[in-house]
């Protein structure tokens, strides 16, 4: 198992190289004048050239690439052309917010999607099944940012139950920074009030993000449960007189979850890359917002940095999922 994990971690190297090469190629191919833009409308030609030299952008692209990769080996993700802040510092500041949001959304999707999938499989072709099917199609086809706006309108404007956006009330001091996850940090500080507030801020954006994976997980779970329920061993168990509940919980659910896990892994990466719109609607200070701003000003270092981080997280998430297979199903061997 250790070799399995190590081999998977080694896979990160080609992923990182591939991502950097692609991003550098895109940066080269894109038209536009990021240096002129960063220098401002009143800069002279000499100032633009000086800025270009300072950031090494007057060098051939392979020199730039080599400089970047050698910096990367030391954990340096470069400096933003627009803000002149180190990209690594910025990502460290924005990443926890995005991770917290994505994990919360995944948690909702899994905690609701899996049982719902089981239920609809058991009640196949009866009203709960039909109802959930219609709702799932709705949830998958509804754009997340639009759902976000609807949630804001309903819960923040009309009912006034939940805040409109942000991560924490701005006139209050957030719990001391430990993990960067406000939920965890407030628990660590033993501040239950702050925890409650954080959860309320987290509610709407994470629900908006969770619906689409929730629906997919539910449909996946339903399909694989139905498939498992037609297996011989289930029939055998029935014949042996085991209760339906016991069969479902003990045998069917476990096997059905294995197939669904793959979807969960894939969705993790999809959510990470797709937080942009939800983060914009809810002013959630995360990677998505950071990346959009950088893309708009063609500030390539942050864009490459975000792409790398998402790529690495994606690989790690799938590794975790693969390891979970073993927990769910002991017959899985890692070689």
């Amino acid at each position: 198992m250790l070799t399995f994990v190590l081999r998977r971690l080694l896979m990160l190297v080609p992923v990182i190289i591939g991502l950097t090469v692609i991003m550098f190629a895109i940066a080269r191919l894109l038209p536009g004048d990021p240096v002129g833009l960063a220098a401002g409308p009143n800069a002279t030609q000499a100032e633009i050239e000086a800025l270009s030299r300072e950031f090494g952008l007057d060098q051939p692209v392979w020199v730039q690439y080599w400089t970047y990769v050698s910096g990367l080996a030391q954990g340096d993700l470069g400096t933003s052309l627009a803000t002149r802040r180190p990209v690594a510092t910025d990502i460290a500041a924005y990443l926890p917010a995005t991770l917290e949001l994505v994990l919360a959304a995944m948690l909702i999707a899994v905690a609701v999607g899996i049982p719902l999938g089981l239920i609809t499989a058991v009640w196949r072709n009866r009203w709960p099944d039909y109802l959930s099917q219609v709702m799932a199609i709705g949830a998958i086809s509804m754009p997340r940012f639009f759902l976000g706006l609807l949630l804001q309108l309903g819960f923040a404007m009309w009912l006034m139950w939940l805040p409109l956006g942000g991560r924490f009330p701005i006139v209050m001091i957030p719990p001391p920074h430990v993990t960067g996850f406000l939920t965890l940090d407030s628990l660590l500080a033993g501040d239950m009030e702050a925890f409650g507030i954080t959860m309320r801020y987290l509610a709407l954006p994470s629900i908006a993000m969770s619906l689409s994976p929730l629906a997919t997980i539910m449909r996946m779970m339903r399909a694989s449960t139905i498939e498992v329920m037609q297996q011989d061993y289930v029939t055998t168990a029935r014949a042996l007189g085991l209760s339906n509940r016991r069969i479902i919980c003990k045998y069917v659910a476990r096997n059905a979850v294995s197939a669904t896990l793959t979807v969960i892994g894939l969705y993790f990466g999809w959510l990470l890359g797709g937080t942009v719109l939800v983060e914009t609607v809810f002013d959630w200070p995360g990677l998505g917002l950071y990346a959009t701003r950088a893309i708009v000003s063609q500030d390539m270092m942050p864009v490459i940095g975000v792409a790398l981080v998402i790529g690495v997280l994606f690989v790690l998430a799938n590794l975790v999922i693969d390891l979970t297979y073993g927990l769910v199903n002991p017959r899985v061997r890692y070689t």
Partner: protein
Amino acid sequence: MTQGITVSRRGLMAMAGTSLAAASFPQSLFAQSGRNILIIAAGQDIPSFDPHTSSGYSASFLLRNTYDPLVRVAGIPPEPVPALADSWTVSEDGLEYVFTLNPAARFHSGAPVTAEDVVYSFNRALTLARGNAWMIRGIVTPEGMVAEGAGTVRFTLGVPYAAFLQVLPWIFIVEKAAVEANLGNDQGEAWLMNNIAGSGPFRVARSQAGTLFHLERTPEAWQAGGGNLDGVIWQIVRETASQRLMLQRGEVHMAVDLTSEDMDALEAAPGVVRVIEPEYRTFSIKMNTAHGPLADINLRKAISYATNYQAIIEAAGYADLMTGPLPDGILGHDPALEVYRTDLDKAREHLAQSAHPEGGITLRMVHVSGLEQQRRWALIMLDSLKALNINLEIVPMNWPDMVAACKSPETFPDLFPVYQTANYGDPDNIAYAAYHSSRNGAWQNAVYANPEVDALIEAARAEIDSEARVALYRRFQEMVVADAPDIFGVLERRKLGMRDVVQGYRFSPVASNAVEAWGLSLG
């Protein structure tokens, strides 16, 4: 729970609802802070605190409140008022400015603000040559600045520069000793990016990039008067619709990026005050005067006459049509100037004199993709040009690509819509940036060049006598209109929304979204 209390399910829901509402409803949060903290919703992050490299309205907000310049501007039209300098004299020939510093002025460290600090700050701005340094480039030189004792600074300008007092609000004074102590190898840039070495009424209490910037009043603020604010929060809210909702809910006291639609929606909102004021911000369509069919002046005039100005103003929301190249109300603007208005007969007359008397050509117009108003304008132009049998190809582009296209007349499109904000309240700002040929290759004036217009702009900026200056700008406007390099569009009004508890607000048409908080109170 004690025995005997029965709560219906609906009652429980209602209780949960009200307790949630009580905990998350904004008023309770304001009360919790127990102090007068003004909250401003704005779309733009503050990338750096360095007063000599950062610009843009968000940085201007921070700098205006944490640093002091020699003079500020206030009122409509903006007039210089004392800041660090409590008085100044200007020599007859307009070359010598002597500023007397207010002896009460103190940096946050407690050290007095001296002439030495002023000279140091101007030199630092000139050396770094970024941010607002362009405003004084070629006008102020290191040799031309002398600290005479602790409280007097003498500037000897290389050339007379009429707008000098108007640009001074944007050159902020840093504490020399504080910067020198943290100089590093980058003129203290890394340190000033996150630290303040100023004398302004506020200092930074909390800063979370991308989320909020919290300024608190310095206990020993030396400035006399002011409002009752203990602090100001610049909260970053990217969506203008969210800014509007937060203003309506009372979660913020001010919103600075509202659209015309937001303003309409706020019309009857209780507790909300709308500020809709003319500002020096132009929105025009530049034409390629140097390359392609529009190098033909008759064709430019034909298009200028064919444009449907009524539709343009309607698409712009709260705005006024421009009369020529300068904004209304600014020094030298001629309201009686004769400009192009929709007149199809005249348009056809000029078309007949052009190289394409029958039309039959295709022009290319770009616009920033996603900017709805620019897209609408492109459609209006498409429709307007049909009358001349001219076709329009509309190309949405990213702003960086548009900037890159300005580099040469060959890559510059035929029609190019652009917003220009005056950075200081003087006609020189717009005249120089948008019509002087030295700006060719940059987006504010990619191609237009006329030596006579250049001469007028240079003469006007060096003219001290304000009547003579007005005459020069009158002539400048006539010449530009005669050349028809732009379709003069609209002056968009500044649209601010605020809660009625905000008191002491005075509008000024220069950078009004970079709110100066010193004079404001919460009632």
